[in-house]
């Protein structure tokens, strides 16, 4: 019995993948679990593994080809099996391109033209009864599936190759408390959502004196073992420590409840060549400054090479974005849902400030926190930011 090799959803947001390299050739023997090819997704280069034993009979998607999740990329079969039927039922987009013969044309072949599934009113996903039952039994999140039926309705065929939704592994995410929404929270969520969009942001800015943090950084970097500590590493350490004290800001909006995390998984926005990715420092509140520095160095480097694994850039509980190196004084970050907050960090600038009646020159840094008002109220966010500021202005407070 031949096995179809389809493009798998290798990350939660992946809709299509490009076959960058075949590690097996037609005619090669393969066993279940063998890596067949490298696939570039929206975020990273991942491995596509065999789901059956036999011989790699036919490569349908050559290197460089981008195909939708669920499309046939190859067939594994017995050495002499007739595969014509299997290959013939290749999903439409692939068949269309090959029969057109105009593979080099500039216009990309649009697939059937169905728009991606619209979550529609009130988050209801349009799906056929059969698709619904399949999805619920296979643990597939219908909202993540591109529907090709009328009006973007998800039909059975759309689920082929769809991966079960990545429910964050408890071990990685640690403990949390799900707190049902109170009436006032529901009202706040509804009213603010109507007012400003699906995630009602508000912004808090604070200017922080970085003299002491600079001294601490210089002293630490004089130790000469371990990685160099950047200002951002210190900020991450401080934010992690502050989030432990302000659990209200270390939370996810979950539509009908709020999830407050016991552990801090800190996303760090990293600019990459064609966009932005947010590797997550797991359990940042438990890590030393050196560990945080090493983690960030490692993941930021691999992010540039698109070598991050999905669990390295998902499951964050709060995010820090720093554009200080680009001489940005101050900016606002856009919240990465379901997280409830992001802190945007500007440049450290020497400027005159008044202190005890005197004008003095100080290293100052502006941070702006974007808060999801459904989760975080003004005062709650302000108190968190106050803690961040106190810790940065007196770094010993981290261990206090």
């Amino acid at each position, binding site marked *: 019995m031949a096995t179809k090799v389809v493009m798998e959803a290798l990350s939660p947001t992946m809709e299509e993948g490009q076959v960058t390299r075949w590690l097996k050739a037609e005619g090669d023997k393969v066993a279940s679990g063998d890596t067949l090819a490298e696939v570039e997704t929206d975020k990273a280069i991942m491995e596509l593994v065999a789901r059956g034993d036999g011989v790699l009979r036919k490569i349908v998607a050559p290197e460089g080809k981008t195909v939708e999740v669920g499309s046939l990329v190859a067939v594994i079969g017995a050495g002499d099996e007739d595969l014509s039927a299997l290959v013939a039922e290749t999903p439409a987009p692939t068949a*269309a391109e090959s029969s057109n013969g105009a593979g080099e044309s500039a216009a990309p072949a649009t697939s059937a033209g169905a728009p991606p599934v619209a979550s529609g009113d009130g988050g209801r996903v349009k799906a*056929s*009864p059969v698709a619904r039952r399949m999805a619920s039994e296979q643990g597939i999140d219908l909202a993540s599936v591109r529907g090709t039926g009328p009006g973007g309705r998800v039909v059975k065929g759309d689920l082929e190759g769809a991966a079960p939704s990545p429910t964050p592994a408890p071990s990685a995410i640690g403990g949390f408390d799900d707190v049902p929404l109170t009436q006032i929270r529901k009202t706040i969520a509804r009213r603010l959502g109507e007012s400003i969009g699906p995630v009602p942001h508000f912004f808090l800015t604070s200017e922080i004196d970085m003299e002491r943090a600079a001294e601490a950084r210089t002293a630490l970097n004089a130790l000469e073992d371990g990685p160099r500590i950047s200002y951002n590493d210190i900020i991450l350490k401080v934010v992690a420590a502050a989030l432990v004290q302000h659990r209200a800001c270390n939370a996810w909006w979950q539509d009908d409840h709020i999830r407050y995390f016991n552990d801090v998984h800190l996303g760090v926005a990293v600019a990459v060549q064609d966009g932005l990715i947010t590797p997550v420092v797991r359990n940042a509140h438990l890590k030393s400054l050196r560990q945080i520095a090493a983690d960030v160095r490692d993941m930021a480097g691999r992010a540039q090479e698109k070598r991050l694994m999905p669990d390295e850039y998902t499951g964050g509980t709060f995010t820090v974005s720093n554009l200080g190196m680009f001489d940005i004084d101050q900016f606002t970050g856009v919240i990465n849902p379901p997280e409830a907050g992001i802190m945007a960090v500007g440049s450290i600038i020497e400027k005159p400030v008044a202190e005890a009646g005197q004008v003095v020159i100080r290293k100052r840094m502006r941070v702006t926190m974007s808060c999801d008002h459904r989760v975080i109220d003004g005062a709650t966010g302000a108190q968190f930011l106050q803690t961040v500021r106190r810790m940065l202005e007196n770094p010993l407070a981290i261990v206090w």
Partner: protein
Amino acid sequence: MTKSFDVIVLGGGPAGYVCAIRCSQLGLNTAVIERDKLGGVCVNVGCIPSKALLHSAHLAHTVTHHAKRLGVQVGEVKLDFAAAIKHSRQVSEQNSKGVGFLMKKHKVTVITGTGTLLPGKKVKVDGDTYTAAKGVVIATGTRVQGIPQIGLDINKTTVISSDEALFLDEAPKSLAIIGAGAVGMEFADIFSSFGSKVTVIEMLPRALPLEDAESSDAITKVFKKRKIDILAGAKVTGANVGGTNVTLDVEVGGKPQTVQADKVLMAAGRALNTENLGLEAVGIKLTDAGFIQTDEDLKTSVDGYYCIGDIAGPPMLAHKGSREGVHVAEVLAGQQPPAIMYDNIPSVTYCHPEVASIGLTEEMCKEQSLDYQVGRFPFTANGRARATIETDGFVKIIRDKHYGEILGAHIVASHASELIHELTVARQNEYTVEEVDLAVHAHPTLSEAVAEAVLDSLGRVMHT
């Protein structure tokens, strides 16, 4: 003279004229070229007149067999085949005129003549050349064919096709029908009801070979009761065509036998109208089987030329061609219509009882090693069927064991052609058997048998 349209449709059958109407609805200036009568084979020498004759046949059967029991006493029953033919012709003409009216109503230009394709989205009819700005749609269809290899060329007297059968003055005393597909079985029903001794010869192992084996068995049993001989798994090895009758050499299960009949009706396969169309000049490719090669939007191998209906490939059904016509019209108007679900096209044979199906047969489910569950309900247990003495047949539902998807449905019933659509809609929308059960079915109806078969597939049938 050169005249320009947005779309030129070559062929005014159920694929072509429907395509033209849809084009016109979408604001495209459209012409249909037809060399014969509008409506094509379907309206003139196919679906429509045969349904009229089948109704005559059914009435003849009802009057002779059931009228007395139903409390209607009639005197001597006299069957008048010529009158039945006359009625069927009237219906055909009415429908063909109706298509002409529809063309006018939708402002579609009808050009009478034989069209030849030219490169550059042009079609020549006699001396005139017509240009299509958007596309040319080829919908020339198919025609009857004989089997000259075994001496069965259609001579229109003793060896005939449906084209002649639909115009006969009287039913022949004896008739041999080659092919037990829908056409063969329907004509067997018609002629047998009008007194012909009918023998149906099928090469494949059973009558209606594309239907589920249970449907084939059921209809074979009914036909046997009506004294229609069905020779399945039978190969015609030779034919002696005389002036007034034909003798066929037939091999059934390796044993030779002869079948003698006044006429032989050819109902096995159809010839494709792809000759002299100008396909080569334009560069339009054919498949190995001789159909015009198309992609899923029915584009041919040459830009600007589309193909729909019988010559675009099987199944050769009017309703499949019409759907393709709508699809192409929408493509030509720049829309992106949803893909045609070729696995959800109902198949219907209108003999009595009718045989209808949608989706996979049980044999196909087995071949594909699907995990399925069958539910059945016989019409002997259905009140409405008993009331009208039409208890032959059943509903058979094949559902996916795990997800409840309706993999296939097979109905043998007096009105199977109407009953099948509930399941066509269900499958089109990927309903599970539960949705079909939850929809309340009126009582008493034949449709209740569908709901009961669904329940049977779930192990909770009520009325057997």
